[in-house]
């Protein structure tokens, strides 16, 4: 009789353990998924920031505006070229969520998970700021980037920009 009790006791014990472990596993899993998601998004942002605003060793897309490049919006999965007046044109485009840079036909991926990238140009005249469509007259260029694939909820919007000191403007 006492042996029968032991089996039930064991079963109850195992059942309790199973419930506890499954709950804990869920919580742990959620933590790991969240961490991985945040890390991936942060990596994408860092790489996009380097590509757009430069990283010290190589000029970013925004800095090339100094050389009179023409900018265009980069909507999702379209191929929009930023044409340079010089022969060594570096072209940037978005395709399948990747930001590419090509020089003389050779391309490389600069950042992934880039959902959209668009540029705005501003100029200042006698202290007053207005928008301009001419990249060569811009004293400030901002880029708005949407990072993250998947649903809108999972996407993050960031703003990147150049300083106000372009082309020796005061």
């Amino acid at each position: 009789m006492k042996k029968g009790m032991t089996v039930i006791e064991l079963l109850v014990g195992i059942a309790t353990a199973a419930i506890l472990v499954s709950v804990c596993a869920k919580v742990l899993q959620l933590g790991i998924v969240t961490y991985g998601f945040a890390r991936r998004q942060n990596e994408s942002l860092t790489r996009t920031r380097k590509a757009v605003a430069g990283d010290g060793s190589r000029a970013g897309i925004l800095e090339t505006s100094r050389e009179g490049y023409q900018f265009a919006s980069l909507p999702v999965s379209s191929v929009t070229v930023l044409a340079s007046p010089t022969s060594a044109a570096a072209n940037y485009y978005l395709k399948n969520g990747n930001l590419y840079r090509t020089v003389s036909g050779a391309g490389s991926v600069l950042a992934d998970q880039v959902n959209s990238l668009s540029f705005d140009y501003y100029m200042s005249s006698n202290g007053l700021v207005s928008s301009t469509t001419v990249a060569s007259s811009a004293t400030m260029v901002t880029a708005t980037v949407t990072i993250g694939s998947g649903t809108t909820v999972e996407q993050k919007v960031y703003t990147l920009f150049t300083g106000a000191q372009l082309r020796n403007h005061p």
Partner: protein
Amino acid sequence: MNRKGFLLVEVSVAYLLLTVGLVALLPVFIMAIKASKNTEQLQVSTYLSQELLEEIRLRKWDQAVPSTPAYIVTPTALGIDAGETATNKQTFNDIDDFNGWSESPPRNPLNISLPAFSAYTRTVSVSYANSSLVALSTPTTSDYKLVTVCTKGTKTNSICLTSLFTNR
């Protein structure tokens, strides 16, 4: 042999203790998730502060500065000048017009709201400073204007960036 009678109680107590321990650990995970969200807000706050500081940098040092920038002896009062609208930064032509500026959500340089950043508030304060970067109380003036841009996220503290502008 009568010890077998205690097994269920023993197991129950053991799991109760285990549960207490595990429940105590739950806030750690919740904290980790919150921390990662806060970090992201702080990062965005920094970007937004930098952006507004650059916007302010596009302005003249003072209303009285001529169109070809030059040193001026008598600056005008801090704050907006005649003909400027307190709610429209596109009418601002000098950096001290931004004194007391607040925008929520942040707006682009053309004063158009950016709904993507609705969780943030940007504020600006401008004051004169002495050469030791200590802010002076009005009406004292100097050749240095101290501009502080603060961006606050809903869940985080303000990220404040300060820049010094000289009379030029």
